[in-house]
């Protein structure tokens, strides 16, 4: 079984089979989902949050930011909470959808599984 399904089984979480198809996520997508896991945010707020939580290692340029937001909207993993009829997309707020949360969790679990293996092989120190 794929690792994320094993993980889902272990955690008792139902993972729809096609979540597999979405993984792995691009770095940008995953960080945007992570940023929105805390709550609703504007585009610029997302970019700042990602930059600060990764200590500047992950940067989302203006175009990459909105391009990724657009894809996540298309996929239905995030949604707009306010319909911005004034035309300024910067004022739109985005939130995680249930599906987006599942995907982000699956990706996180996938990475956690890899990290666990790395620890077992003593590539990085074991947790206390």
């Amino acid at each position: 079984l794929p690792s994320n399904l094993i993980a889902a089984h272990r955690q008792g979480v139902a993972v729809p089979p096609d979540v597999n198809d979405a993984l792995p996520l691009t770095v940008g997508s995953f960080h945007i989902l992570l940023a929105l896991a805390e709550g609703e945010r504007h585009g610029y707020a997302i970019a700042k949050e990602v930059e600060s939580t990764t200590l500047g290692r992950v940067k989302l340029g203006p175009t990459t930011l909105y391009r990724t937001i657009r894809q996540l909207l298309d996929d239905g993993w995030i949604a707009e909470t306010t319909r911005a009829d004034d035309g300024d997309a910067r004022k739109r707020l985005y939130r995680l959808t249930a599906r987006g949360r599942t995907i982000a969790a699956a990706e996180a679990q996938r990475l956690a599984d890899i990290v666990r293996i790395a620890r077992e092989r003593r590539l990085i120190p074991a947790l206390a």
Partner: protein
Amino acid sequence: VNADSSPHLPNRPRGRLARALFSALLAVCPRDMRREYGTAILGDFDDRYAAASERGASHASRFAVYALFDLVGSGLLERFEAFGRDVSYAVRGAARAPVFATVVVLTMAIAIALNATVFATISAIFLQPLPMRDAGSLLVLWETNPHIGMMTEAFTYPDLEALRRETRTLASVGAIMTDPAVLDGAGAPRELNGYFASPDMFGIYKTRVVLGRSLTAADVHDGAPFVIVISNELWHSAFGADPHVVGRFIRISDYRAEIIGVAEPHVVEIDGWRGGLARPDFWGALKPVVWREQGHLLRVVARAKLGVTHAAVDADLARIFTTLAVAHPADDAGLSAHALTARDALVGDERPIFLVIAVAMLAVLIVACANVGNLFLSRASARTGEFAVRFSLGAARGRIVAQLLTEVGLYVSVGGLLGLIFTVYATRAVAMLLPGLTRIDGYGIDPPVLAFTAFVIVVATLLAGLAPANALGRPDLSASLKASGRGADLTRGRKVRATLAIVEIALAVAITTAAGLNVRSLQALTQRTLGYDTTNLWLVHAGAHYMKRYATLAGQLTLYRHVSHELITTPGIAAASWSSITPFNSTPDVPFTIAGRSYGAGTKPDVDFGPVDAAYFSTFRIHTLAGRTFDASDRESSAPTVVVNAAFARRYFGGVPAALGKRITVEITGFGQAIVPRTIVGVVADVRQTYDHNAGPIAYLPLAQQSFGSESLVVRATSPHVDVPAIVRSVVARVDALLPPPTAVPYAELMSADVGRQRTAATLLAVSAAIAFVLALAGIYAVVSFGAVRRTNEFGVRLSLGARPFAIARLVLADAARILAIGLAAGVVLAAGIANMLEPQLFDVPALDVPTFAAVIVTLIVAVALATLVPVVRAVRVDPAVALRYE
């Protein structure tokens, strides 16, 4: 994007510059992304630039550069990904509908293969440079005699000299005379393609000599030794590329010739006799002493001076000949001359027919594209619901059109690749049909053909994709959504489909008519009465060297008699005859006069003529109409006689019996025999020398009194299974072991080659027509069938209300009838136009040939009726209960 809308507008010059650049580069992103997020991205840029500026100018600059790269990178990625998504969508679509995909790909493959093949052929004949240096300024000159409609007469030597002396526009003028010759003393005797040329010919063709020297003016003097330049190929094949070959003596047709040079490889020149392209094996000097007294035998090739126009050359030639006519009224009155470019001289005649073929190929491409467009429309109509949903979700029209074009483009490209594979085989087939391609080598798929195919793929994608894209671009959203996909159609799409079907029908009618006319013309041509029997008849090329080996007339006649005798006593051979006038081969003509009549300058009539032996008329089975044909009583010493044909007797004496006993003088010079008046002793039936030759006047001379020393042998076998070449070879070897083995060609082959051009045209057109016809049928079937399926409910209602099946059938057929009527009308008009273009190429068939037009129209109507049978039956059999269940 309004630059003033941002509250954080950078106000320093550098910031403004960065922002302007960023704003401009937003164009890299696809339009829908720009429209949705352009303001957001630009605003985000402003916010972050302002934040960076607060930390210092270097931070701001670094951010600006980073943001610009991010913009360009993401924008391109977005575009590329959109394309990639469209391609993968199209591939998945093809996998879901394999039959649809196969039909579309095959249709395009066939149409593209046809286009590539025709383009390769046209390119080889008309576009590729001729295989000679600076072929563009190479001219072929002809004497003309407008009074008798003669436009391509060879030059006499005196005319050539006058031309050289007087010309103001030609840099150099040279003459060639092609002469088959035999090489002895280098292995077995072999036939060579000998060129007797003015020394300037090397300069005119810019042919280089890789060893020794080329011909010079000194080599043409009367007493100069016989020297030759050999071709590179002969140097390799006969002399093993011997570096000391220059200075060697060899025997050519029993003359001792010294090799003075070796030409560069791959020299191709205009053939001095038939006028095609040929590879000479050797060049000898054209000596005035030999040619001065001959008639119109020299083919003249020239180079114009730099910067002189073609018109100026023609004017110059006209001026020279006007002067000549004044100086030599007896020989040159009425004569003129004109120049053709080498290309026109070689393939000028082929242009009209290839123009028609090119038009046909384009028409097939259009029909194929219309059909593919139609198929996509039909399928897309079934997806109206899907498109409407996507529109309502805000998908840009451009995105859907791009996706559709990507899909069509993918199919067309795959079809194109497959088409190129077909082309490999098709060009091979054409090469077999059309042996006289101008380019001797390298006909097939080459870079120009690939470039053309790529161009065709783009054009075909647009042609096939734009109609459905346009029809789908603006669907009626609410109607489509309400109808939930089933039964919904785009009125506009329906109209487009009907129009496409009409175009297909019209083009199919036009091409099929053109093909029909060509096929009928070819049939008529090959069914013409020739006046002789060619069953089991063979032509044997014995070679021109006999005259040189058997120098006297008596010697030649003895050889001929021996060979004939040996042949007819061999089982399997019914008859054999020697002559210099063999149909489908060559027919010389000369001026002649009738005793008791006077002729003004340049008004002597020309007549086809040739020496023939006593067995000639019985071998060819030509009927004698009056008097006798030749027999043993016609000897060198007996009274000069001549046999003419009925056309001759009618034209010059008013009837067959009237010609008997009259005396004519045929003016043959240069063969050492006296020009004497001859008595007409017989009149024979008319013959055609070739299919397209009219049965004109012919004078037959007795071989015993007049020989060219280069007669051909004609042999009739008793059955098609007789191995004539082997028999002839063994007989000739038995009679004279030193003669090179002759080659025998069946008449069927000569006759077939004679109509090779017409057959190629008819075949290419017929193939195009068949494809166009089938595609057009498929097109009209698709429209009618789709229309009928769409109206299933309506038919169900009608049937349940008591409508008779016939009425339903009429409803379905009305669609087909409308398309057919308009398509036919347009097609017939188009066909008439093309037929007029074709007229000069047609034999015994008028351009507006009623049977051809009628056959095409009737066939099409019947075929359309059959094609619509399935949808009609389906409509009539609609079960009202089932049809209405959906309501």
